[in-house]
Every structure is written in C-alpha cells, then in structure tokens.
C-alpha cells in the first residue's frame, strides 16, 4: 500500500498523470454501462483520496479554489465557443429567466429544506441553497452527447444556454450568503443591489468587449499556428481574472467572450477549437479528480441524511417548480417542462462554490461542502443515469444524424470558403449517383478524389467508391449539406425513425400555406392563406421555431424540420398525428413496459434497440 504519499516533485507528477490516464480509460468503460462520465472522475478522485486506496492527503481549499476557478473559466469559454449563435438566440429569453429567477427560486426552496433538515438559520440555509442552485454546463452536455441523444432543438438550446449563464448568479448568491454570515446583517439592501448590477452588467460588457477585442487581435497578428490557441487561452483567463478583479462576474464574461469568438470568423479557428476541446476535457477531469481528493468521505457521513434530503428536495421540488414558473411565458409543452426539470444536473460548480464557506472560515463551513458534495453525487447518479430514457419516455428525441467523417482545414483568412475532406461512407447518397452528375450544393467544388492513396483522374471517374477521400471547397453554410452527401444514410434501425418524427412528406417552408391547405384539407382564414408556411408556423408556434416544433392544422400536423436564419426551411407533414401528450398513466405504463422488456432481455443476452 502506498501510504504517506505527499504531494511534491516526482510523486505528484507520476501519480497525477496516472490518475488522469486512469480517468480516461475508466471513462471509456463507463460509457459502455451508461454511467455518467463525471461520476467516474469524481469517484476515482475519492478512491485516490485519504479514505481510499492511495490515501493521498489533499486539504488545501485555497489551491482547490484557484485551480477550480481556472478550470471553470476554461470550461465556460469552451462552452461559449461551441454555442452557435442560432442556439443562443433560440433560447436566450427562457434561458435568462432560468439563469436568474430560476436560480434564486431554487436557492430559496433548497434553503428552506436546509433550515428544516440541518437546523440552520435562514442565512445559513440560503447559503446552502445558493451553492447548489446552478446546473452544470459540462455535465448536461456531456450526458446528452455521450448518449448520442438528439433532443428537440429548443429544449436542447434552453438547457445549453441556461447552464452557460447560470453560474454567475449562483456565484453571486453564494458570495452574498458568505458575506452575510461573516459580517452579520450590516450589509445593506442597496449595496447588494449595486453589487448585483456591477456583476451582471460589468460581466456582460467585459465579456462582449473582450471577445471582440480578442477576435481582432487574433486576426491582426502573424504568429506560429500553435501559438494562436495560447493567445486565446491567455486572453480568456485575462478576461475572467480582470472582470473578477473589478467586481464584475468573470464567469459571465468568459462565457460571453467565448460565444462572441465562436461566432465570428477568425484565423486559426480549427486549431483553437481543437485545443480548447482538449483543454476543457483536461480541466473537467482535473477539477473532478481534485474535488474527489478534497473531500474526506468519512466526514460526509455526519451530514449524509440531511444532505440526501436536500438533494431530493432539489430534484423533485425546487428544480421542477423553478422551471415551471420561469417557463410559463414561453409556451413549452408539459413534456418539455418535465424534461428540462429532470436535466437540472449538478456538476463541479456546487462543490467548488461550497469551498467558499470553508475558505471564509465560517463556523461549520465543512457542512456546506459536505452537503454540496452529496447533492452533486446524488444528482449525477439519479439524473445523470436517466437522461436518455427520460427523453425517450417524453418523446422529445429526434432521429440521430449519422456523423460524417469530415476533416476541416484552415482556409486563408479573408476567403469565405472552407476546405473540407471527406471519407465517403459505405451506403452514402453520393454512391448512388454518377460522379459526373453528383448533386453538389451550390458554390461547392470538388478539388480532388483520392482512392487508395492515388489521386484519381476526375474526367474518367465513373462513380465514387466507399473509402474514397474527397477534397472540397465549400462555403461554411454548405458543409452540413455535404455531410449528408458523404455520410452513411440514417440507420434503418434508428430508434426514432425519421418518418415517425418528421411525418410522411416534406415540403418547403417558402410555399404558400393556402396551397398546402387545399392538398391536405385544413382551413385557414384569408390572410393566413397568403402567408408562407414559414410565416404561418412562426405565428402559430409563438416563439422562434426550433427543429421538432409542431403545429396542428385540421387533421394533420406540420413539423419544423430545418431552420435557417429564423425561418423554417423544411416542413414535415404528418398525416395521422398520434396524441403526443403523455399522460401520467401512460408514462407509468411505459416505464413498466421498459423495465419488463429490459428484464426479459437480460435473460436472452444483450441486444441493441427496443
């Protein structure tokens, strides 16, 4: 047994590296059994910790807080980089509601539970609530993507943007709670309000401004390709740290800066994105390992029962209630509200925030930490394990798009087209057409076709073959169409077949609604007949349309299939819409059915699909 390993020099490097390696390898296994990846990292950290096998002692909350801040800043910046402008616009309003009022409501309700279960006064209770009030961006998206689950677009977007935006609010409430506990009630109401304003507005201004400045800087300087991501990372941390120094929210600033940068054309975009992909992973693993190390499981026991009580209140009362209230004005269906409530996953942030009371040396500070830890663990186990089935039960899944194997290259700056390489998938639509008649999206040109390492003469090429490499120049907005051309067609056995989700037929969103009405026997009033389908659906849906949104017309239903620039491009027509509202009885029946099916399957050995 490796007793008495102290951090320092070679020990630190060797065991630290082993831990990271172990995390990745174990993580791979965990996806097989569907366990949430983050749980593995956290568990491994605990296993290495002082009550585990390696018995590493790590109790420095100050170091943990600093490293946690850096890691969070990187993760949030990366989250911003990946959030498409359209996603943000689609979900900004509901997400902002959830990220502010929602967080406050959650904190208050959980605070009441903490008063009840822990016997805290209201400030203490509120502080407990505040630490666990925000959802975790990384946890949510890792889970959704890890399962390859595609969720209705607006639901997905709301969860994504919410989790990017709600950390500042939770941080703010936690800081207020700590200040109240440290300085008593000397803190004045208007002081809190002023702080709040500086946090949010300052954070927004610094983030947006900093993001724009960073894009400019990167487009201006000529340096080695490998240095661009370093510039971006340093700038992101500077934006975070700078904002924090002047009392603004660095968490908000760094997310917004990422959002700006990810949606502007800039040099070295691919290198920077790849770099941050890796760096965010490392931060994710590092942060969970560290928090796992930081906790002393033995001490958790004392607070275990009340903490589980608070976790259950959070999952079953606070989150659903907050979501329900915040989403009231936005016309989400009941199933969507239920799903958004269920995916209120907690990740590293609560544990990180709960180290603040310890650092501030608040009496009983460790209780906050322990409670947050148990809440996160419970949330990862209960909610994390069930995201996929929940989406299926509530019928919010969209058919999965087959990933095309695409290689991106950095094109010259100032040139508005990208260069992309594809490996032609067996069974892809491109194979069904003669090479000379290949249906290429507009402004796309094929530069070269490489077969078994040999560049082909395109004049004599009859047809593409699976495994060929095709090199194209294409405007960025056409890359998606190219993906479909070269990727394998949608899996026939995909759980949610396209027909089931998008209906029998497809029509263009630019068509006149009146024309469609006569074909499918629904009635519209005079001015509705003159609208395009896109306009009609926009009007009926009542918010920006997202893929999967439905409009009922007479006996049929129209389904948003593709959106571009706020307009519905492609519309699915479902002739016999089933009742998609899920009643409680139906839900129960389906859960039982699934359990029975799983039980039976276990006897026959593993089989995919249901």
């Amino acid at each position, binding site marked *: 047994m490796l007793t008495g390993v102290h951090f320092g020099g070679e020990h630190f490097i060797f065991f630290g590296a082993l831990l990271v390696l172990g995390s990745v390898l174990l993580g791979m296994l965990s996806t097989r059994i569907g366990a949430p990846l983050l749980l593995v990292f956290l568990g491994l950290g605990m296993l290495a910790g002082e009550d585990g096998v390696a018995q590493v002692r790590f109790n420095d909350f100050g170091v943990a807080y600093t490293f946690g801040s850096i890691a969070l800043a990187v993760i949030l910046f990366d989250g911003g980089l990946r959030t498409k402008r359209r996603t943000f616009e689609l979900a900004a309003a509901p997400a902002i509601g959830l990220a502010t009022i929602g967080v406050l409501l959650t904190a208050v309700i959980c605070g009441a539970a903490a008063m009840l279960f822990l016997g805290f006064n209201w400030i203490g209770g509120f502080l407990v609530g505040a630490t666990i009030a925000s959802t975790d961006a990384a946890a949510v998206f890792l889970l959704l993507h890890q399962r390859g689950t595609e969720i209705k677009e607006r639901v997905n977007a709301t969860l994504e943007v919410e989790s990017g935006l709600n950390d500042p609010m939770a941080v703010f409430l936690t800081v207020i709670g700590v200040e109240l506990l440290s300085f008593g009630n000397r803190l004045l109401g208007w002081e809190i309000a002023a702080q709040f304003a500086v946090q949010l507005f300052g954070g927004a201004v610094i983030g947006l401004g900093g993001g724009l400045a960073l894009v400019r800087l990167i487009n201006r300087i000529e340096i080695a390709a490998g240095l661009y991501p370093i510039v971006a990372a340093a700038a992101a941390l500077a934006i975070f740290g700078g904002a924090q120094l002047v009392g603004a929210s660095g968490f908000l600033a760094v997310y917004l800066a990422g959002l700006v940068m990810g949606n502007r054309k800039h040099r070295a975009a691919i290198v920077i994105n790849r770099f941050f992909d890796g760096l965010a992973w490392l931060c994710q693993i590092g942060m969970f390992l560290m928090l796992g190390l930081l906790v002393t499981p033995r001490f958790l026991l004392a607070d275990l029962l009340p903490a589980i009580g608070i976790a259950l209140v959070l999952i079953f009362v606070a989150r659903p209630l907050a979501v329900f209230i915040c989403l009231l004005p936005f016309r989400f269906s009941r199933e969507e509200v239920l799903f958004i409530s269920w995916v209120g996953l907690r990740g590293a942030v609560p544990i990180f925030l709960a180290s603040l009371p310890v650092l501030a040396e608040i009496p009983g500070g460790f209780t906050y930490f322990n409670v947050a830890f148990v809440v996160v663990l419970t949330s990862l186990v209960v909610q994390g394990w069930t995201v996929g089935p929940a989406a299926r039960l509530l019928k919010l899944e969209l058919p999965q798009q087959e990933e095309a194997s695409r290689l991106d290259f950095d094109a010259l700056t100032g040139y508005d087209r990208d260069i992309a390489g594809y490996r032609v998938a067996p069974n892809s639509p491109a194979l069904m057409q003669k090479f000379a008649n290949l*249906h290429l999206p507009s402004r796309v040109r094929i530069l070269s076709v490489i077969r078994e390492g040999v560049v082909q003469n395109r004049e004599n090429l009859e047809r593409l073959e699976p495994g060929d490499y095709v090199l194209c120049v294409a405007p960025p907005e056409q890359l998606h169409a190219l993906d479909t051309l070269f990727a394998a*067609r*949608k899996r*026939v056995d995909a759980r949610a077949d396209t*027909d089931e989700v998008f209906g029998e037929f497809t029509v263009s969103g630019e*068509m006149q609604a009146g024309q469609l009405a006569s074909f499918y*026997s629904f009635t519209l009033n005079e001015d509705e007949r003159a609208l395009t389908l896109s306009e009609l659906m926009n009007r009926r849906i009542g918010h920006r349309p997202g893929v999967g949104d439905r409009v009922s017309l007479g006996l049929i239903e129209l389904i948003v299939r593709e959106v571009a620039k706020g307009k519905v491009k492609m519309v699915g027509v479902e*002739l016999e819409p089933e009742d998609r509202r899920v009643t409680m009885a139906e839900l129960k029946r389906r859960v039982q059915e699934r359990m029975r099916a799983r039980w039976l399957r276990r006897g026959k050995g593993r089989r995919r699909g249901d």
Partner: protein
Amino acid sequence: MEISELLAPDGVIANLKVTSKKQALRELAQRAARITGLPERAIFDTLLERERLGTTGVGHGIAIPHGKLPGLTRLHGLFARLEQPVDFDSIDEIPVDLIFVLLAPEGAGADHLKALARVSRLLRDRGICEKMRGTDNPDALFALLTEPAASNAA
C-alpha cells in the same frame, strides 16, 4: 382502409421505362386517365403542382405523388415499378424506382389522408419493397401490394 379498396390490377405497371421524373409522372397520368376517364392533362398538372410544393420522394427509392381532382368519385391508386431508377429530388437524394400515385376526389378529407398514410406505411416496409423490386410480374406486384394489413402492420 385497405390498399385493395384503392388499387385495381390494371393500376399496376410492372416495368415502366422512363428516364426522368416528369416522364414518369406523365406515363402515370396517362394510365390514370384511362382508368378514371378524366383528362390526362388535368391529372398531370395536379401531380406536378404537388411536386412544386416539395418532392413526394419520401426516401429509400420510393415516391408517393398525390393530389385532388374535381370530377373523381372515389379514391384511385396506381403503382409503377420502374425499370431504371430516376432522380426524383428525394429527401435522401436516392433515385426512385417504386411509385405509388394516389388521386382523391375534390371533397375527400379524412379518407384521403388516411389512405395516404396507409400507402406510406405499406411502402415503409422494407421487406415488401425488396420483394417488389425483385419481380416484374404484375400479378405478383398486385398481390404484394394488397396483402392484408395484418401481415405488414409492423
């Protein structure tokens, strides 16, 4: 609604030789005109008008052109198996070789939609489609298309 209520044996073309979507629709309109007694031009125009709204090529090599016609007294179906697949602007861009045309009276509402859904469900059965691709015997095709719903409900 059963396919046998829509489709008669003379509505099945086992080996249609065409080279384009338009030509396929024209041939089918011609056959439909013979069966229904309505002018070929009107049928062709109706089908074409529907294609302008968006292709009826639903993917996997299948198309279901359809429309409503004044003067029709009941639902009429036609089926064609093409000798060579033709480009139909389908969603998945796969050329089409199985076409089911459905024509409905002007006033048909729910019946039309139900029949259309029924046809779509039938042609979603990949097993049946493969069998239909494998034969150019009109009687065999008719039998495959009109098999009772129970056997292909899945």
